[in-house]
């Protein structure tokens, strides 16, 4: 017998037996305690780190909106976390295909470094995006992926897209300087809470209530919370909450919650932000040796790649965020688009000419059946149709090819279709 194994129960009396049994059990307290402490830490640290809402001077909603408008942050770098949960069926590539189809775009050129193919990924799931900006001429946006990264770099007149996974490069050009680009350049960073907020504020009118809803801390900075709420009923938008940095007026966090409750449809916020000037090397890009470079075909004939990027940079969820009013923008790209209703309840409608989208069970073929299975059959004075629902945007496609889309409930769509008839 080993000398150190002497607490074997065989050598002990009955009392010792009990004692050594207890002693054995006592040792297991250590791993259990470690586990307990870890669980408590995981549970409590976020609660403790939440040091309460910061104390900031009172401000009116109007002042806060002006603050956002005046915000002129030229230099920043930070990490943004974007979660979108539209409740879309996971269609992967098909979804983006439909989207670009709907926006009237042709197919892409097959390069995986093309911004349009890449940024539609933001439309679903949770993504981490890094942003860096230094003035109007230099921005960088990187989409962090598993062991890879997609970077979109704008430096002077060059726009580079680099997909490290496939080692492919996309190159476009943009006109240098000029005030006109300013506005467009901001659109280069559609993922930032600022862009989302600007879109949301476009919809502010009589049908909307805007209030300042206390203060909050975002990414370690004190911020005001701006609450945008539709006054009407019938819309699927519950509320939009924006955290605005108290010092710079930059929106730091954007959350859109649906009327039916549940998790936010869109939640984009900085997890880390710095207003220091990013290192100049951040914006330097030379295509790596051996990388496949795709030149933007349009940049020769037309010196602005942005118009092409824009619709894709604002994929599906944006249609929701734009809220009904701004669907008008989208509408201009489609022929025969009309808007019914006002404010949040407005519904966009257009005629596909009866052949654009096979709808419902009435349309034959596999595609019709497939699409029909995704939606709900409805009927009314307008005839029959199929409603496709997401958590935010609902669409009614009637069997005669009319389409009604809006951030409104199913009933509101049917009602609109009935009145339109």
């Amino acid at each position: 017998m080993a000398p150190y194994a002497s607490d074997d129960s065989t050598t002990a009396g009955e009392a010792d037996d009990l004692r050594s049994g207890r002693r054995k059990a006592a040792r297991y307290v250590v791993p259990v305690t470690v586990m307990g402490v870890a669980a408590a830490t995981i549970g409590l640290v976020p609660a403790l780190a939440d040091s309460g809402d910061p104390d900031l001077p009172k401000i009116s909603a109007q002042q806060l909106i002006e603050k956002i408008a005046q915000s002129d942050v030229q230099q920043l770098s930070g990490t943004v976390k974007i979660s979108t949960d539209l409740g879309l069926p996971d269609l992967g590539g098909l979804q983006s295909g439909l989207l670009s189809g709907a926006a009237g775009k042709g197919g892409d050129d097959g390069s995986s470094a093309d911004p349009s193919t890449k940024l539609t990924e933001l439309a679903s799931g949770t993504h981490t995006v890094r942003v860096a900006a230094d003035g109007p001429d230099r921005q960088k946006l990187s989409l962090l992926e598993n062991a890879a990264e997609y970077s979109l770099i704008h430096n002077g007149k060059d726009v580079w897209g680099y997909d490290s996974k496939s080692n492919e490069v996309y190159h476009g050009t943009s006109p240098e300087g000029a005030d006109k680009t300013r506005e467009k350049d901001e659109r280069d960073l559609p993922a930032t809470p600022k862009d989302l907020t600007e879109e949301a504020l476009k919809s502010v009118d009589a049908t909307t209530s805007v209030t300042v809803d206390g203060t909050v801390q975002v990414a370690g900075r004190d911020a005001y919370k701006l609450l945008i709420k539709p006054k009407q009923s019938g819309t699927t938008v519950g509320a939009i909450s924006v955290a605005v940095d108290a010092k710079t007026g930059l929106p730091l966090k954007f959350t859109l919650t649906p009327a039916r409750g549940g998790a936010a449809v869109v939640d984009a916020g900085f997890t880390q932000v710095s207003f220091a000037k990013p290192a100049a090397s951040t914006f330097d890009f030379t295509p790596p040796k051996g990388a496949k470079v795709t030149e933007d075909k349009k940049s020769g004939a037309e010196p602005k790649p942005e118009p092409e990027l824009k619709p894709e940079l604002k994929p599906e969820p944006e249609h929701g965020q734009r809220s009904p009013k701004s669907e008008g923008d989208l509408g201009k790209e489609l022929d025969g688009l009309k808007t019914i209703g006002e404010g949040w309840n407005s519904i966009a409608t257009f005629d596909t000419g009866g052949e654009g989208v096979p709808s419902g069970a009435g349309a034959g073929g596999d595609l019709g059946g497939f699409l029909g299975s995704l939606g709900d059959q409805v009927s009314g004075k307008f005839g029959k149709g199929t409603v496709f629902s997401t958590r935010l945007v609902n669409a009614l496609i009637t069997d005669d090819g009319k389409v009604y889309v809006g951030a409104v409930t199913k009933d509101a769509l049917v009602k609109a279709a009935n009145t339109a008839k």
Partner: protein
Amino acid sequence: MSRADVVPQSYATGEQALRKPSPLWTFGLLRNELMTTLRRWRTLALLGVLAAVPILVGIAVKIETSDGSPGGGHGSGGGGGGPAFIAQITNNGLFLVFTALAATLPFFLPMAVGVVAGDAIAGEANAGTLRYLLVAPAGRTRLLLTKYATTMAFCLLATLVVATSALAVGALLFPLGDLTTISGTRIGFADGLGRALLIALVVAASLTGIAALGLFVSTLTNSGIAAMATTVGLLITVQILDQIPQLHAIQPYFFSHYWLSFADLMRDPVYYDELVKNLGLQALYAAVFGSAAWARFTTKDVTA
């Protein structure tokens, strides 16, 4: 707490002379353990397999791109297949280090570690040598710590074997030079080499969790094979569970969940969030299963 605390009086008196082993003795024990582990054919075979992985990957990429086609070679718009960084290997051999680590980390490396860790206590018990080890005045806690240190040393050694083999193959088959980070910025070769070393260290640290788990399993049984099979089986189970989307709520607590975060060291600037999470998780696993192994081993009846 030392084992002597629980030794009954009658034994303790007779042992005074043997007590208080010098610190050097711990080193001796560790050196002894290391030599025993490394001299096993099994260990050498495992290291051989690990060294072969980068050679195979390197040759495969070389053959595939020998007709002058650009890196990747997964057809147009592809790049989805294969381990991380594989598309960049043809342009810079250093990337073979990252690819090889990414290819071996999910299975080969932890399997090798699982074999060594599972064998640590149970193997001795199986061979009937455990009680002789305990006759020496090392104490069970010290022996356990030595075993864990040996396993961790093997983690580091295995990772370095993969990295070194990959670097050698990469330098032989492909050009070396400045490299492009996955964020698109360029860094010098020395910087890249530094990052490769850092990545190897992070990968080795990523394996400490499964090493502690294997050691705990090893104290539960007297059969070395059973302990290795259980450890490797747990590894495979966790890897499968980590792929099931419905389990996303508990996945962040799997020891393998953040393994591939080492690639974040190739971003510029480095993205630390997941790296820190990974290291914290490994420390937690090491603490929980290390102390569980200690609780089990110091109270266990050693009969073999």
